[in-house]
């Protein structure tokens, strides 16, 4: 079905189910309860989950398959965002042209950057992409202010031309919509103590995410994807067989750039504003963290990583010392204070510290990220089941160099 294998169908269905039911799944705690702050089921955060999921899926097509580590991917996200906001300013507040334009412009930009950067590999490639991204950031911040709005960024205004939309009433704020469906529109459903929010913008973003996840599966399973893996395992040998790998790596680079542009366009569609800080190199570093954390080279890993980082950024960062005190209140006073003092640096404003430590642990012990961790645990269980029949792993074969 759909050109997917059985396992992929199952994976895709699970992801689809999870994204569609996310408003339920992410809201497990009733309103007003002590744990309600761990609910991630509000539209803003759910949108971020899927948008950064798309960004990370795209980054993974480059890094996970070809092994080229780009430290400048946020530039494509930023360029896509700017393109989208200009579509909203000039044509219409409908998100479709904005998103399409974001993908196209980011794709063109990544052709340019990729063509130049891919002439080198390894650390040089990382530095080249970083240099391009930092240049875009600096230019968006300063010289290109007429196009980018400089430090303040851009928002659609009532006075913008907008060829296809009717004139807005004075004082009204232009709302992003999909053929009239307002992106900010939400339907709230109260079940007992629970409050579930179904947001139009989230479902649009989720649909796009599922589509791009599907494309990513197809790329992973295609001969093209196998070629990209071959680049990762040994580019030199590929070159010796007389095959020019450049078109393949460039294609992968452009595809991942377009994914970044798509994410940028969606960000604008959900929240109609752009600023240059979106292109700063820390943003590029963040997508690297997401992909590695979840598992580079796996299908679902980047999405998991993106979700985990965004969850930490929005939920863990809100835990302050008062909340910690209520958690540990059952302990004797002295012990409570000690525990709070020990935990406090790792939550709240210090969530980056936890992120850094987790990231280091993953790189050191689990090069395959969370996905590999999950697989190892699964294997552990399976082995226990099969206790008795001694399964010796087949000896690894090493190809002759």
């Amino acid at each position: 079905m759909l050109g997917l294998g059985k396992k992929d169908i199952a994976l895709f269905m699970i992801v689809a189910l999870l994204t569609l039911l996310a408003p339920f799944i992410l809201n497990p705690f009733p309103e007003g309860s002590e744990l309600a702050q761990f609910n991630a089921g509000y539209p803003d955060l759910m949108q971020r989950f899927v948008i950064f999921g798309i960004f990370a899926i795209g980054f993974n097509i480059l890094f996970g398959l070809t092994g080229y580590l780009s430290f400048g991917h946020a530039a494509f996200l930023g360029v896509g965002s700017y393109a989208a906001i200009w579509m909203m300013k000039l044509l219409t507040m409908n998100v479709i042209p904005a998103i399409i334009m974001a993908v196209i412009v980011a794709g063109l930009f990544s052709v340019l950057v990729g063509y130049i950067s891919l002439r080198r590999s390894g650390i040089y490639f990382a530095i080249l992409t970083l240099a391009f991204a930092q240049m875009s950031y600096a230019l968006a911040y300063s010289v290109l202010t007429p196009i980018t709005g400089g430090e303040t960024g851009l928002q659609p205004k009532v006075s913008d031309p907008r060829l296809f939309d009717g004139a807005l009433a004075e004082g009204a704020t232009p709302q992003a919509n999909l053929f009239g469906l307002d992106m900010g529109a939400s339907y709230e459903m109260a079940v007992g103590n629970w409050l579930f929010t179904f947001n139009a913008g989230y479902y649009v973003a989720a649909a796009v995410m599922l589509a791009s996840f599907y494309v990513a599966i197809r790329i992973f399973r295609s001969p093209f994807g196998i070629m990209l893996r071959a680049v990762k395992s040994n580019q030199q040998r590929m070159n010796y067989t007389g095959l020019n790998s450049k078109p393949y790596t460039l294609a992968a680079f452009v595809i991942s750039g377009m994914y970044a542009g798509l994410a940028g366009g969606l960000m604008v569609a959900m929240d109609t504003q752009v600023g240059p800080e979106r292109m700063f190199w820390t943003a590029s570093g963040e997508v690297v963290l997401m992909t590695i954390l979840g598992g580079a080279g796996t299908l679902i890993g980047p999405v998991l990583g993106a979700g985990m980082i965004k969850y930490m950024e929005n939920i863990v960062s809100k835990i302050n010392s008062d909340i910690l005190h209520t958690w540990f209140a059952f302990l004797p006073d002295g012990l409570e204070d000690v525990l709070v003092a020990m935990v406090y640096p790792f939550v709240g404003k210090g969530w980056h510290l936890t992120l850094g430590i987790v990231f280091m642990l993953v790189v050191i012990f689990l090069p395959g990220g969370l996905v590999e961790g999950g697989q190892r645990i699964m294997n552990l269980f399976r082995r226990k089941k099969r206790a008795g029949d001694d399964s010796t792993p087949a000896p690894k074969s090493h190809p002759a160099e």
Partner: protein
Amino acid sequence: MDAILLQILNGLDKGSAYALIALGLTLIFGTLGVVNFAHGALFMIGAFCAVTLQRFLSLSFETVDPTQTDFLGNPLKVKTPYVEHWFGPEIGGAIIDWSVPLAILVAIPVMVAVGFIMERGLIKHFYRRPHADQILVTFGLAIVLQEIIKYFYGANPIPTPAPDMFAGSLDFGALVGMAENSIIYPYWRLVYFAFAAVIIGSVFAFLQFTTFGMVVRAGMADRETVGLLGINIDKRFTIMFGIAAAVAGLAGVMYTPINAPNYHMGMDFLVLSFVVVVVGGMGSLPGAVLAGFLLGILESFASMKEVIDLIPGINQIIIYLVAIIILLTRPRGLMGRKGVMEE
């Protein structure tokens, strides 16, 4: 003429910082073959050594001075730093005043220790992993170090003044026979440049003229053979890592009066320092120093008003632009050796 001279001087202090960090990066890469993304964090830790020492020296106790009263008529509480109490106001005041240079003495052992722990505890296990893994794990380490500093010192920059003696500016123009006040240059920047020159000179002298340095250079050229000759090259490389960390730390200590240190200063410098290393050529020590000064001076030239009028925004992107051009036309960088990470 004076404008050009002024820009060269302006470029020197930033260039010195680039050169010092790039020198350390190259030492680590040349010896251990590890790409250290946490090197900027080492620079930052050095800077916070200075902050810590200054705070430590200014620790004071309160006494009630009956001869003075505050505006409410109560006896005035006077804070006296312990140092002044012990050594008398003059010597004590001088010690507090000179806390930044004094921090060098503290920073050397601290940084060498940090370097040792980093190398033995973490980097050692990454010799044989791909460069991408090394970049990632040191990137993670940089985040951790930077967050630890943020936890203890807060997110705001902490002003750390230089000794009063160097507070003013030098009328450099008058010194070289031009009109007075044509070139004004702060003393501390001169000190920083001289300091950087001394450090760079001593690192090179150490590598060039000592037996230890000779062995290290031999190890950089061919690690395996040196190991086969029965020399414990790993131990020497670990020591070089400590030295590289100390160089970065000292660069940070002395940089505090120029820019008030904050927790992300390391990352800001790291990105540029990597560009510097790559421009100079991976693994080439003179290349790193040359590229550091060159890019520092280029940056300050690009921020001249005339240049900005000609090409707007050039001051923001010049370093990256140069890096891209050099990487594409001279893959080995300015002075890179053949065969070192050319792919």
